[in-house]
């Protein structure tokens, strides 16, 4: 299998503010968020529930408009869903079409992009292999376990060959072992393709384990409480990395930030 080498996209958030209007009182959710994510970087985003993590992802995927500020992907302003970006939504089980097989689900975005049939087939197969779903292509999502469904959602995101992958609490509702497997899968994907990766999680261990850098959001409205670099070496290992003294230190720091400023 060949992985055409791609480089990740560079993402820049400039003073991004979001206020939801309509349906009663206005809700000021995000306040002057600025951040730069370098090509190929892995950024975890953590923060208490309801702080605005999903909102932030929706803004940078162009699904929801910003109130003020700018989001730039490779220097280009994001106003609608960018070609080079793929997202795995928080409700991933609901994001799969129950009337389509695994293969057809993965193929759908390629069809929408009007990619030729042969090429679509190739990409679907390599995405299925990448996430370890060999032999499940003709099954339906509801015939799969939660962890496997999540793999389908990831495969679907990968098939469109994005340069930036954005995931919203992707492992929140799978069992512990599956979660570790999926974490390592995401790291492998980043390694294989060099894509820029953003992952929202409420699990501080997970945030540190995966990322080059952790963005901590706190407050109402939310602001960037800290950007914490994670100096742990890659490839990471579920046992060794987590046992590293720096690991405990970093997660403690993040915990303090979130608990202290809630």
């Amino acid at each position, binding site marked *: 299998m060949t992985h055409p080498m791609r480089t990740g996209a560079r993402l820049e958030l400039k003073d991004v503010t979001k206020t939801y209007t309509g349906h009663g009182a206005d809700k000021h959710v995000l306040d002057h968020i600025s951040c730069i994510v370098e090509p190929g970087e892995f950024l975890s985003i953590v923060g208490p529930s309801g702080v605005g993590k999903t909102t932030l992802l929706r803004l940078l995927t162009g*699904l929801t408009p910003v109130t003020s500020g700018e989001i730039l992907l490779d220097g280009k302003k994001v106003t*609608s*869903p960018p070609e080079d970006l793929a997202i795995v*939504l928080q409700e991933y089980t609901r*994001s799969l079409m129950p*009337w389509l097989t695994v293969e057809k689900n993965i193929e759908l975005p390629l069809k929408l992009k009007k990619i030729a049939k042969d090429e679509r087939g190739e990409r679907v197969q390599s995405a299925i292999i990448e996430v370890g779903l060999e032999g499940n292509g003709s099954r339906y999502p509801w015939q799969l376990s939660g962890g496997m469904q999540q793999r389908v959602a990831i495969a679907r995101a990968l098939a469109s060959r994005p340069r930036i992958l954005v995931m919203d609490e992707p492992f929140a509702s799978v069992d512990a072992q599956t979660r570790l497997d999926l974490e390592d899968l995401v790291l492998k994907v980043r390694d294989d393709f060099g894509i820029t990766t953003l992952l929202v999680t409420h699990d501080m261990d997970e945030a540190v384990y995966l990322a080059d850098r952790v963005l901590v959001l706190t407050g109402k409205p939310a602001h960037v409480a800290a950007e914490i670099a994670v100096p742990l070496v890659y490839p990471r290992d579920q046992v060794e990395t987590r046992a590293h003294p720096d690991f405990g230190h970093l997660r403690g720091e993040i915990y303090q930030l979130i608990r202290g400023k809630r």
Partner: protein
Amino acid sequence: MRFANPKNWLWLISLGGSILIWQLVSVNLNDRPFPSASKISNALWAMLQTGEFWGDLGVTFLIAMVGLIIGIVLAVPLGLLVGLNEFAFRSTKFILDFLKVIPPIVVLPLVLLMFGTTIKFSITLVVFGVLFSVIVQATYGVRDTDPVLLDTLSAFNASKYARLKYAVLPSALPFIATGTKIATSAAVIVSIVTGLVGSGPGLGHSLSVAETGGNFPNVYAYVVVLGVVGILVNMLVSAIDKRIIFWRGK
């Protein structure tokens, strides 16, 4: 094994029991309005030999199916349009719910005046009986589309048309199928009623003629036929539904 499980042939026992009780009771009653089960079955057997019966059955079936198809063909696009448009949905909701519960028999005299006791009259009435429940179901189906699916497609830069094709329509399909199931029963009933009450062609009319003529064994024979037709049609529709909407409830 299917037959090893008593649950699977319970219906047969209860059916046999009912016929037996009918037979026992009817032989002790006035024979005129309560013919015995054996008399009814003889009448039924004789009826099945006549071309007239099969003609009637065919006409009744034709009326139901043509009315059903016209009704669905009209109702589905209407329902989809109404469901897609918030304004249309809000402004028609009350009227649709209102029309849905009006039995077609209410408008029967009106349609009868328009078309006389023709097959057109019967079909029009069936369409009326089918239309609103399917429109309403299609509307709800559209509105039941999971916003997560729509977001997913939007994130892939899907056009409005693509969102309709890949999310809205498949989401509405189970609802349309349910509406069709309800409508199919309605279509069969209405096609009989048009003959029974409005003297339109078909089994209903023959039944009413048998009743007026005091031929009670035939009346009951028709009732048995109608029941069997109803069951068969329902089974057929359920089987089709299961095949097409295989993801229902998933």
